[in-house]
Each structure stands twice: as structure tokens, then as C-alpha cells.
């Protein structure tokens, strides 16, 4: 199922991706020629996505804000070396993921959670229904508990397994894109994804089938 989704997704979004890649490349060229406003445009375009990845890997909103800024600054200071061999977003995601994994490795003995606010309107309906039943209608308590359990479960995975499952299931990237970002093979991505979901299934057994 994951494979067919990945293939389908690639076909459906190919045209969109091409337009996006061209648009990004034009902005990158402008930055390289000295137009700083073009970099502001790139930052605004990708900051939510980069923050989401970093936050979900670290489970700490302050660290995530700091690392997201760091990723953009690294991209800015080395943009002259960007030759367009990969798409800008793959390059940027790679910078962010590498910086975050280094941070996690450096601070593996010091782990503090700091959760982001839940936008209740964004919570999927099927989840809200299950939680309402489980918590006798106290929706907020149910959502907070699920947030905590989910973050705890993700943190039990190794950083690399966590990153793959976040990029695939939350960010919606396909196997090929994840392999490029993590500089590994698609086979490794699939294998890590399969293992990570098995682990999550076990950690979250109170909620899953």
C-alpha cells in the first residue's frame, strides 16, 4: 500500500513539483545575484514545513525554532554553492534534517519535551470521535493525552527511524525524496518505515487496532 501510494503520489504531483522547482530555482538565482528579498520569500514558503519536521524529531518547540533558523542561515550562507543538482527543497530539507540529527545526537542525554499548541480544528474527525468516546466527551483532555503519547512513542524510535516516519507519514514525502534527503537508498527508507510503524503500533496499542 505504501509503495502504491508513493508511486501514485509521484505521478499526481509531478507537474506541481516541476512548477515549484522552477519557481524555487528562480528565487535561488535571484538570491545568488544579491536580491535578499528572494530569500525572504523562500523562508516564508518553507518555514512551516521545516519547523514541523524539526519539531516532530525533537519534540521541543524552542529547540525546533532555533534549529529551523539555523537551517535557513546555513542555506543562506552557502547558497552560492547551490548548483541546482537537486531541488531547493530537497537541499534545504537535508540541511535541516542533518542539523537536527546532529543536535539530537549531541543532546541525547538531555531530553526535554516542550509541546506545540494543538489547533483543535485541525484534528482529524475520526480521532476526535474515538477520543470523545474514550474520555467521556472531554475532548481537550483526550487530545492533550494523545499528543503526549504520540510524542513519547516517536521519541522511543531511533532518530533515523523517527525521521523517516515523520517525512513519510506527516510531511507526505515519497520514498525517493526521503532517500535523497537522508542520502540513503529507497530500500533502506522502506525498511526503516516498516520497522518504525511496527514499533509505533506496539507503543500506541491503547489507540490502535
Amino acid at each position, binding site marked *: 500500500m505504501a509503495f502504491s501510494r508513493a508511486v501514485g503520489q509521484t505521478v499526481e504531483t509531478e507537474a506541481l513539483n516541476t512548477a515549484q522547482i522552477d519557481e524555487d530555482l528562480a528565487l535561488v538565482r535571484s538570491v545568488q545575484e544579491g536580491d535578499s528579498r528572494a530569500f525572504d520569500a523562500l523562508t516564508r514558503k518553507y518555514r512551516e514545513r521545516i519547523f514541523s519536521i524539526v519539531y516532530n524529531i525533537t519534540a521541543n518547540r524552542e529547540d525546533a525554532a532555533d534549529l*529551523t*533558523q539555523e537551517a535557513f542561515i546555513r542555506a543562506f*550562507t552557502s547558497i552560492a554553492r547551490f548548483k541546482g543538482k537537486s531541488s531547493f527543497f530537497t537541499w534545504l530539507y537535508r540541511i535541516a534534517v542533518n542539523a537536527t540529527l546532529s543536535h539530537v545526537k549531541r543532546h541525547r542525554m538531555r531530553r526535554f519535551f516542550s509541546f506545540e499548541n494543538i489547533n483543535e480544528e485541525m484534528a482529524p474527525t*475520526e480521532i476526535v470521535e474515538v477520543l470523545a468516546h474514550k474520555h467521556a466527551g472531554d475532548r481537550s483532555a483526550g487530545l492533550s493525552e*494523545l499528543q503526549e503519547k504520540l510524542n513519547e512513542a516517536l521519541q522511543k524510535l531511533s532518530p533515523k527511524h523517527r525521521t523517516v516516519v515523520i517525512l513519510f507519514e506527516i510531511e507526505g514525502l515519497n520514498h525517493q525524496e526521503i532517500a535523497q534527503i537522508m542520502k540513503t537508498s529507497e530500500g533502506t527508507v522502506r525498511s526503516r518505515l516498516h520497522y518504525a*510503524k511496527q514499533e*509505533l503500533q506496539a507503543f500506541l496499542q491503547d489507540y490502535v487496532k
Partner: protein
Amino acid sequence: MPQVRKPDQNEPAALSVEQLLRFKKAEQPSQAFWDEFERKMHQRMFQAALERRPGTFRRVFTAFAHSKLFAYATPATAAVIVFGAVVMSPESGNVTAPVATLARSVDMVVQVKAPALNAATASQSSFVSDSLQMNLDNGNFRKVLAAVDMPFASQSGSTRYVADRLGEQGRAGGVLFASTSF
């Protein structure tokens, strides 16, 4: 005989791992978070741009960045204002890089009055670094000045931006606000 729990007719179906993970998308920062993010981002990018510059400029900025004044700087602190003049020296049809000269010693904030500049010429100038160096040499300032809401040119740090903004004024006596509060 063990009791077997009867399934609850009203109980909704259990969830899959994939469904649960989609809930993570509901964790979203507020607009206030992004406003603060952008402010800090510009601050750090300015610092990164300066760190790429050699010599005095970097040392002075680093000293400033670690001072307590920096930590407490807000737009409201942009109160100490000194007027300077931009000196342009045409020589054989060429315009040299303009230099802002401060009237007296200042700590925090500088407002520079500039005549209209030709944008193309100004963009090639080293306005900021030259101005800082000159005023540092004659003891006219003790802190580095920086522009409000400053986006940054990729290759030339703050210089290009400031020069371009001066050029954009397009009229004599255009004013550039420079503030430590970013």
C-alpha cells in the same frame, strides 16, 4: 466461567498508526510565534553576514551582540538619534563610496541623513563598513548600528541592502533609520 466483554455498539472503530500520526499536523505555532521567529531570524542572519566580514567590523559587532544593551534593545529604545551627513566625492565623473560621519559619539542608534544616491553606484558601495570604520577610527561611536527590519543580500551582507535603500529614497535628504533593535 470467564466473562466475555460484549462489544459496545457505540464504540467507534480503533485507529491506525497512520491516522494517529496525521494528528501531529494539528500541532501548529501561533502567528505570534512566527512574528518572533522572523525577528530573531533577521537578527541571526545579520550576525551571520557580519561574521563573514573581516577585522574590526566583526569584533565590534560581536562585542555589541554580547552586551546587555543588546538583550534589552526594543524599538522603544531607538531614542538616541544623531544626525550625520553623507559625503560624496565626485572625481572625474566617478562617485566614490559614501561615508556617513556622525556629529558626536553615540551608543545605540543612529539616523543618517543622506542625499539622493544613484542606486547603481550605491549598490556597489561599502557604505556601512566604511562608515563604521571611519567613525570607529575617530572615536565617534561605541556600538554598531544596524537597520530596522533588515533583509540581507546574500553575498555582500548588509552593505548592499543599506545602499539600495538609500538609493530608493530617490530624493535629497532621504533618511535611513539605523537601529540596534532590528
